[in-house]
């Protein structure tokens, strides 16, 4: 990292400290923790865009798949639901996969022609009906088990931290399928395909209640750090609160936040180290060579599509990891809260603002943009109040403008993205 990078990170730390001193330490830690997670997502996107020039607009989908992993790994299993339809649901999934594989097999074995098309279609239709005959009743039975609090299969009841790598694996699997289809074609196609898959992942999370409880949300997921409520009872937290002159509640939530910050910083640190190593390795040079001139890289014997696939999977895995970490910090999976603007496009702003092609830049972008995202809302309200101060209090327009102040941040982010792209396309910490 250059001197400029150190200065920027120091400024960021000061700003966060200022938030702690003037607003509250809880807020500062909340921003810090989400920044750490965002930084991991930004690292993933930077890998795809900065290393390889791949345009992924499905970050939200990979994040959400990672979040699902937390539910499937850490939640306790629901025995009644398993008894009601567990085997049926699993068998249904297997049948679905099997019919797709059968179709692929038929496609590969038969000679080209109308017969092949019909055979593939037939296999898929038959497979669909068999699958839904098994799958439908099983999932309905599961969703009928105690629907107010359960109605899903639950997870494996394993430690929640284990869900993080699993989340990365899930995202990697989805990314592999998407990449396999759309890489090797025009670059726009990957963008459109990822846009689609992310919408579908969210639809699956919302609709497949037997798996994720859908829009009923899974709450109360085991957390990797003791909850503030439980911390309040601990004597050392109480004595800490006394020494600092805070109330116990505040001290407990700060301690808990620090715990998360430590865990996340550990993960982020390891990832940065790995990414830097990768960037400086022969592999990193190869990726940049492919990015800068695909044709000559191909002439040197590099399999461009395979390399793109690999790095696309890797970057998406980071997004999945971050998604899992986020869900385990919140302690809940809320499929309704995934919005592309927040989870996909904001990450892109982070990468562009921070500096694409520079790991430290992406991380810094994660911090700055998340900070702005949180703080622009009150600023927007203040701005709207300023604008509307001349209007009568009863004016509809004034009420409307005040209520829509929170959308100011979309505007701000868009303007920031456009300005950076135009005047400093290399970002705050440019690629070396």
């Amino acid at each position, binding site marked *: 990292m250059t001197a400029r990078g150190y200065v920027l990170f120091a400024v960021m730390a000061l700003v966060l400290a200022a938030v702690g001193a003037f607003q509250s330490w809880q807020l500062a830690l909340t921003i810090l923790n989400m920044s750490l997670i965002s930084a991991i997502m930004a690292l993933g996107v930077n890998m795809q865009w900065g290393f390889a020039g791949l345009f992924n607009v499905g970050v939200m989908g990979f994040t959400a798949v990672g979040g699902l992993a937390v539910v499937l790994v850490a939640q306790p299993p629901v025995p009644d639901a398993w008894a009601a339809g567990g085997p049926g649901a699993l068998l249904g999934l297997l049948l679905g996969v099997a019919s797709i594989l059968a179709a692929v097999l038929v496609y590969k074995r038969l000679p080209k022609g109308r017969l092949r098309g019909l055979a593939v279609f037939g296999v898929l239709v038959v497979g669909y009906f068999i699958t839904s005959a098994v799958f439908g009743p099983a999932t309905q039975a599961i969703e009928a088990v105690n629907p107010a609090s359960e109605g899903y299969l639950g997870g494996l009841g394993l430690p929640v931290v284990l869900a993080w790598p699993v989340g990365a694996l899930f995202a990697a699997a989805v990314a592999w399928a998407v990449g396999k289809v759309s890489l090797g074609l025009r670059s726009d196609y990957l963008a459109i395909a990822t*846009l689609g898959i992310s919408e579908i992942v969210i639809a699956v999370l919302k609709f497949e209640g037997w798996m994720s409880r859908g829009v009923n949300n899974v709450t109360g997921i085991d957390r990797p750090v003791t909850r503030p409520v439980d911390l309040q009872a601990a004597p050392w937290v109480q004595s800490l609160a006394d020494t600092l002159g805070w109330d116990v509640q505040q001290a407990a939530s700060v301690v808990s936040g620090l715990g998360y910050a430590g865990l996340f910083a550990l993960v982020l640190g390891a990832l940065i180290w790995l990414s830097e190593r990768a960037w400086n390795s022969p592999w990193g040079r190869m990726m940049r060579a492919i990015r800068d001139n695909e044709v000559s890289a191909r002439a040197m014997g590099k399999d461009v599509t395979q390399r793109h696939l690999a790095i696309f999977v890797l970057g998406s895995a980071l997004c999945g990891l971050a998604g899992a970490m986020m869900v385990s910090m919140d302690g809940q999976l809320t499929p309704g809260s995934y919005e592309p603007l927040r989870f996909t496009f904001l990450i892109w702003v982070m990468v562009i603002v921070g500096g694409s092609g520079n790991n430290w830049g992406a991380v810094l972008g994660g911090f700055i943009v998340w900070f702005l995202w949180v703080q622009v809302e009150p600023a927007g309200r203040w701005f709207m109040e300023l604008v509307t101060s001349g209007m009568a209090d009863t004016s509809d327009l004034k009420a409307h403008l005040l209520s829509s102040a929170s959308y100011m941040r979309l505007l701000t982010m868009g303007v920031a993205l456009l300005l950076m792209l135009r005047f400093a396309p290399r970002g705050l910490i440019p690629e070396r």
Partner: protein
Amino acid sequence: MDFLNALVTLSNFMLVPALAYGSQLALGALGITLIYSILRFAHFAHGDTMALGTAAVIGATFLLQGAGIGIAPLPTALLAVPFGVVAMVLYLLAADRLVYRYYRRVRAKPMIFVMASLGVMFVTNGITRLFMGVGETRFEDGARFVFNVRDFRDFTGLAEGLALRNAQAITIVTALIVMVALFWFLNRTRAGKSMRAYSDNEDLALLSGINPERVVTITWVITGILLVLAGTLYGLDKGFRAFNYFQLLLPMFAAAILGGLGNPLGAIVGAYVVALAEMGVTFAWRRVAGHLLPEGLEPSGMVQLLPVDYKFAVTFMILVIVLLFRPTGIFKGKVL
């Protein structure tokens, strides 16, 4: 067996809505395909610009309604469309001057354009929400039906009914007129021909004295008209919610790619295929099957292939199939 009743049910619940939805998609996909063939990038701000255009139309509609001006039984929004068009054409041209023109001059990679269009999308989205919020706004007025289920049943004496909503009829008719006008423009006028020339071979077009900036301007103007019409018709049909417009991006892209990016006719065909597939796969075929199958064999379930929530999955599957087997689309779009 009751073929007529089956057909009527099918039309009422699937064919007519799909035709209307397909027309809305077609107008959107035409814009995407035009931008693609002239400016050569995937315009991600399309959905949100449609939303903003519709918002402008809604604003004008409310003003007109407030002034007591209307064209009942047609919705007032049709009268407001020109205001929306002017606003959006100015907006798009401003976006072009402020954002895209620079990248054209430095001959940036297509991905940079896409990124810039993301920025424009963000800004547009923010502006739309500033005006409209995130809730649903309905702005349809005038008569609701051209003919409703009861009229149809009384008239034909069939057991099943068919309704044609005003919004659907207007959508289909408008889309037809616009498409014909667009093809006339592209094939018969000098400006349209210069657009096609520019799209086919940029260098040759420049050589023969076609002004690229003029071509680009015309493209944005046409896109603006298509956008506002598509958005308004969609809003009349289904109500206005900013987020739904963003979600239209995927079916519109799928339609444009399916037909072959850069091919206007392909975009239209693609749009109707996507709409029919989306509706067909998520449609509950029970009643239709009940009429068609012999007595005693009526299905007990809904006979719905996929729940409605998965309509994007259908679009996506179409996209995947096209990408796997025929990346240039049905009508061989641009060399991709």
